[in-house]
């Protein structure tokens, strides 16, 4: 059914509203068939929950409900990511508004019986605050302080049903742009809203659109950059899987604003589920006349094609991405000319990130002032962070710009795992830096992160604790950029390798103080001379750790120790007075370098010790073998 005009879209929305009715109403568990509504069971289909068996849970639920003849009154859905990956698989029941955590397929019969038949909450599956032991059926502390704009529909609507998206105001922003606004008005709204690119550098989106529009050409292109390469960031994937139509709608709006009739989504081949959802969404949009010729009866025509990446981090850089779409090696080129002047096949091209695009429909509908009221002076709106590492609540969080790291890590994230001590937060992935404790309370936005030597990047936020060695972390990122350097410019190709070699030398205990100076100098040279963003930002993890954790580097090169006990070559295993002389370790040592007889303290021959840790694993007496 092709929608011929706005009235048809509005009529379809009115018709579709009933799809979301149950999820919008609030009711208590006790009342059966409350307000005559069908119950909706949402089983999280995010990457984490999916991996830990949520599709099986949904299947079991459907089978059980069928068996009991309840499938007309209770429907099962698999939407996108709920965000609270740590407690997955999660299910949420509407209109009861009850969330169950860490559900397994075995819990299904209990849930159906207790919750649906007896009208009682399944107490042991409710979220429990680890400190207060209080149980929460709804309003989990994890969601306090979060504001979902980009993720507004993710986990809330069924992503493979365009009608649910339309019911949630979907494609209304497009209708507004096509019939009530001029292209310049659209660009002005974006400029005033203060929306900046969420992919890394934070360039103002409205200005990018304006530059692209200004360049005269017979064809212009829109590209959605869905080549999410930052290891540890998965927000774009969640948007693509959980709300693909919001990306399509935003691309249509961009097309109308800059005068493009063709768009491309460059998506990682490693995201098959996202690719599938996008294909379904594009087919549905065609079916309803929201893609193709004369959209909603206007003069505007637009089509979207999917292009697959092939595993190259550098393709997240816009010029490299464009070359990849053209079928070539994904190597960046010198800017200027910027893609806005000469991009895909030499035509003006606008490249926007997934999260940036997902913000656009609500900005058009609610207005620039609404968006600009959220956030800080120069960074407006919200940012999605993939919170991971040594934090209790791993997950996707969307918070207003200006939220502090402490709020994200300790309030939303629930603090550090196993009550260890926070050491640093790594933001911006391989291009970012490590932020130490003293900046936990500074509000985060593009400027503040840059001023402390890190960057927003795509939004990966990895929490590190006392057990992490900062030199080793720097080495990890350097290995990443070395592997991913495309080789086009010498500064990055050779420079990242030399940095990696020096870092390896330091972690092996062969570094000198001079190496630290050399490394710092090389970092500056690479920053100044590399061709693209990958190379220019590659030294950031080293520079930030050198700045804030220099004493750890010094410990490695001068004292030849690794304070966190990570760098194997610098470890020393020792047997203390607590040894009871059981000879277990003597028998287990692969090098036979532990000597000692029964009931006497054993000794490790440090010269021959491999530092494999087998002795410590075997030892049954706490503190008898120590590693430092």
């Amino acid at each position, binding site marked *: 059914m092709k929608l011929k005009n706005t009235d048809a879209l509005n009529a379809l929305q009115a018709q579709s509203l009933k799809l979301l009715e149950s999820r919008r109403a609030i009711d208590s568990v006790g009342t059966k068939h409350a307000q005559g509504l069908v119950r909706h069971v949402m089983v999280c289909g995010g990457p984490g929950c999916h991996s830990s068996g949520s599709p099986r849970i949904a299947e079991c639920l459907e089978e059980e409900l069928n068996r009991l003849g309840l499938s007309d009154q209770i429907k099962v859905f698999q939407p996108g990511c709920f965000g609270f*990956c740590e407690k997955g698989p999660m299910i949420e029941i509407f209109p009861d508004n009850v969330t169950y955590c860490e559900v397994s397929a075995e819990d299904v019969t209990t849930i159906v019986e207790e919750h649906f038949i007896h009208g009682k909450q399944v107490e042991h599956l409710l979220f429990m605050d680890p400190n207060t032991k209080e149980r929460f059926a709804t309003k989990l502390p994890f969601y306090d302080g979060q504001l979902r704009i980009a993720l507004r529909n993710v986990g809330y609507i069924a992503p493979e049903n365009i009608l649910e998206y339309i019911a949630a105001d979907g494609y209304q922003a497009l209708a507004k742009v096509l019939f009530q606004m001029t292209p310049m008005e659209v660009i002005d709204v974006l400029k005033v809203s203060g929306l900046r690119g969420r992919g890394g550098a934070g360039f103002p989106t409205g200005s990018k659109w304006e530059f692209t529009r200004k360049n005269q050409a017979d064809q212009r292109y829109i590209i959605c950059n869905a080549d999410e390469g930052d290891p540890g960031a*998965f927000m774009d994937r969640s948007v693509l899987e959980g709300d693909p139509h919001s990306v399509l709608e935003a691309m249509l709006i961009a097309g109308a604003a800059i005068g493009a009739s063709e768009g491309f989504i460059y998506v990682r081949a490693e995201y098959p589920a996202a690719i599938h959802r996008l294909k379904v969404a594009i087919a549905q949009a065609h079916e309803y006349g929201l893609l193709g010729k004369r959209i909603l009866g206007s003069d505007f025509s637009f089509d979207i094609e999917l292009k697959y990446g092939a595993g*190259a981090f550098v393709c997240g850089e816009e010029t490299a991405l464009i070359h990849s779409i053209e079928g070539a090696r994904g190597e960046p080129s010198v800017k200027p000319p910027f893609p806005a002047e000469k991009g895909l096949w030499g035509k003006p091209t606008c490249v926007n990130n997934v999260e940036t695009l997902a913000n656009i429909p609500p900005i058009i509908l609610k207005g620039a002032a609404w968006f600009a009221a959220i956030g800080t002076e120069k960074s407006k709106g919200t940012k999605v962070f*993939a919170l991971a590492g040594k934090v209790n609540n791993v997950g996707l969080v969307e918070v207003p710009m200006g939220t502090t790291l402490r709020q994200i890590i300790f309030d939303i994230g629930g603090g550090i795992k196993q009550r260890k001590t926070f050491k640093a937060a790594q933001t911006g992935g391989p291009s970012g830096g490590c932020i130490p404790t003293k900046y936990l309370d500074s509000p985060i936005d593009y400027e503040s992160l840059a001023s402390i030597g890190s960057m927003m990047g795509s939004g990966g936020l990895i929490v590190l604790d006392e057990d992490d060695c900062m030199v080793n972390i720097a080495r990890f990122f350097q290995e990443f950029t070395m592997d991913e350097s495309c080789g086009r410019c010498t500064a990055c190709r050779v420079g990242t390798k030399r940095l990696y070699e020096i870092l390896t030398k330091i972690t092996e205990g062969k570094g000198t103080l001079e190496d630290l100076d050399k490394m710092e100098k090389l970092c500056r040279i690479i920053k100044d001379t590399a061709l693209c963003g990958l190379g220019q930002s590659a030294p950031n993890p080293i520079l930030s750790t050198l700045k804030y954790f220099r004493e750890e580097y010094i410990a490695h090169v001068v004292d030849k120790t690794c304070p966190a006990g990570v760098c194997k070559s610098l470890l020393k295993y020792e047997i203390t007075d607590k040894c009871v002389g059981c000879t277990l370790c003597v028998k287990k040592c692969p090098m036979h370098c532990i000597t000692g007889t029964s009931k006497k303290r054993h000794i490790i021959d440090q010269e021959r010790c491999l530092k494999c840790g087998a002795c410590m694993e075997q030892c049954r007496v706490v503190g008898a073998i120590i590693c430092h």
Partner: protein
Amino acid sequence: MCDTASPNQFVQKLDDYIDSLTHKKENLIGVLHYAQEIYGYLPDNVQWHIAQKLDIPSATVYGVVSFYSFFTMIPRGEHVVNVCTGTACFVRGAEKLKEELENQLKIKAGETSPDNLFTLETLRCVGACGLAPVMIVDGKVHGRMHKPQDINEVLAKYRPES
């Protein structure tokens, strides 16, 4: 994976796919994805065939194949085991997991076992950071792989029953 297939076996299928494209040269990466899907890998003669068919130098094809890590020129084993080496997994013990897999499979990352059963590789982030460290066998994610016996149990599922 069709590692034993002769490159000629699927030529018709590949040609039909290329013929169905409106833009051919620009779709080189798409063609390579398709070819790797049917052949399992991209040997020289398949690259040569694609170059001829798209009327581009074979050096260009090789240049693209060797640039992207998703493409491989050597056949993979029956089951592909991937260790996620993204940052979240790294700080939660991906390195140990990799070593343990190398131990249990008796191959290094990037290699295929002599019986052609397993190929061990690494990749960066699959978005299951809540389950770190994770390993992925034939696309299925297995999380919280801390203990050697858990790893062994997962691998056992893919070994032929003997």
